């Protein structure tokens, strides 16, 4: 069977796991292309206005898989138990997709992960595998292979960041949800601009998530969201090794609107630039702000030396 995976939202956290898992089960996976203007436009058309840019893009990516797969995989991942909750928008994704693509023939493959309701990830994935016709042993093996690939990927990202931190020059921690950091229309141009300004961008997801979540309590103790905790943790772990922080938010984001405000108030010794992106084209304003931000850091360093 061909299983479509939208290159958006939690793909950037669990994508490697999903691809390995389905392939081990003997299925073919199809990934939607990198975000382009068509995907963005389509996502905006499909979505209600109140959705954040990242969610709009998600729907655009689902649409890009129409006719390219037998099923499109849209899990509901609500929380990680004690590690925190995911954004509530994630909980609605399968239902919204079913409704949105009702008349198109695109079939949605669901999974329900909700440790708070006693459905841990492992159980949910094993159940899914068996629904797809696998034996318990096959399901177990696919799950483990997926987890191993995922851990390997995490280790790679951490190693990359360690190397980047050793580089000369101005180091900027780019803090955003991974699906924003790596999206062609959200984070990628910003990361590229930082590089073009001769600074070293360091992505906030290159940390051990568990360690980051526990470190996050040193900045704020009562943050409900998994990813927000990890972002705070990354800041806490890197704050003494970087020259500045760029926060990227996809408008309108509930969690970020609270958490970023807190970051700005509580992290006082590192310059912070807060960038808000919506679907409007045109990065001129963003470039101006990035350039002046890096200038400020550079001038400050020159004065200190």
């Amino acid at each position: 069977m061909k299983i479509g995976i939208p290159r958006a939202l939690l793909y950037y956290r669990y994508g490697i796991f999903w691809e390995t898992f389905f392939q081990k089960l003997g299925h073919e996976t199809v990934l939607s292309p990198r975000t382009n203007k068509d995907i963005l436009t389509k996502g905006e058309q499909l979505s209600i206005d109140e959705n954040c840019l990242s969610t709009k893009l998600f729907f655009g990516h689902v649409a890009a898989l129409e006719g390219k797969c037998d099923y499109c995989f849209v899990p509901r991942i609500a929380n990680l138990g004690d590690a925190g909750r995911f954004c509530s928008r994630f909980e609605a994704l399968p239902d919204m997709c079913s409704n949105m693509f009702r008349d198109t023939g695109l079939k949605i493959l669901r999974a329900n992960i909700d440790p708070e309701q006693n459905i841990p990830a492992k159980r949910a994935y094993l159940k899914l595998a068996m629904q797809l016709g696998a034996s318990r042993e096959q399901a177990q093996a696919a799950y483990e292979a997926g987890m191993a690939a995922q851990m390997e990927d995490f280790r790679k990202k951490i190693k990359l960041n360690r190397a980047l931190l050793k580089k000369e020059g101005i180091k900027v921690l780019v803090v955003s949800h991974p699906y924003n950091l790596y999206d062609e229309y959200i984070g990628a141009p910003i990361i590229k601009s930082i590089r073009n300004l001769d600074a070293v961008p360091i992505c906030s997801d290159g940390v051990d998530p568990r360690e980051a979540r526990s470190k996050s309590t040193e900045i704020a103790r009562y943050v409900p969201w998994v990813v927000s905790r990890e972002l705070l943790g990354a800041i806490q772990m890197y704050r003494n090794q970087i020259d500045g922080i760029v926060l990227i938010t996809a408008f309108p984001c509930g969690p970020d609107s609270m958490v970023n405000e807190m970051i700005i108030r509580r992290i006082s010794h590192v310059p912070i630039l807060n960038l808000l992106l919506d679907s409007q084209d045109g990065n001129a304003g963003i470039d101006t702000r990035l350039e002046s931000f890096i200038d400020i850091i550079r001038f400050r360093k020159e004065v200190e030396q």
Partner: protein
Amino acid sequence: MKKAYLGIDIGSISTKGVIIDEEHNILASVYLWTEGNPLGASKKVIQELASQIDLDEWTVVAAGTTGSARKLVGAMCNASIVKNEITAHAVGTTTLHPDVRTILEIGGQDSKIICVEDGVAVDYAMNTLCAAGTGSFLTSQARRLGVDVEEFGKIALGSKNPTPIAARCTVFAESDLVHKIQMGHKKEDIIAGLCNAVANNYLNNIGKGKKILPPIVFQGGVSKNEGVVRAFADSLGEEIIVDENGHLMGCYGAAILAHGSGIEKPFSFDVADMEFVTREVICENCPNHCEIICVYRDGELIDSWGNRCERGVIRS
């Protein structure tokens, strides 16, 4: 021949230019309206600058551009440096006022604040999206009141009892203004109220959370309005410095940065006579359909940008 440096600041409303010497003294300066034509306005600025100096005595060895059309005009003048307006303003202002701590700026369509420590910018905020409290907002309200906006400041200073105006948003401000006129408030009180609203709106928006320390320099078109200057002084309880060259700080900074870049590139005043055109090309190589801007000098492609990837590069 002595070395000189040229700076141009191309904003959406006005275009400004200066030529400075190696000690950063201003040798020539021009200020005119952009009128939606950044290339045309810059050519005029260059022409007028040329007419103000002795070209047998001075030679421009580097040019710098800033402002919203900095890239386009930078390509036209073969600029040594193309800089964002925050850095350019900070550099220009701190050169003239080395001890400045806060730069307030309200222009025609945008506003910004820059915080300075030991002569370097350490923090800033800018607002380019909302017209409330900018020069164009005051101009349109002046029209409604049948007053010349240049007179605003003087009239406002005559008010003893400024009318409170809700200026959080242009639309609200307008309806509140109409309401206050109908209620019979005096014109000078309303005008003073508008000036207060502009200052307070600024402090509550982009000034929010910023430490506004003295010395404070206020620049941009609206700084010519004494009513707003007084409103800032009252709100902040500090002296507000308005420099007569305040409007030139962006281009002055760009010229200084051109000097500081150490890059000397031949600049010729002849660019004012050359033909520059831009053409928009849509890249068809992928669904992004990037709009690529190509700049031509006398029919020859000199620069292009707007492509998201290498496949869209357009070369001459």
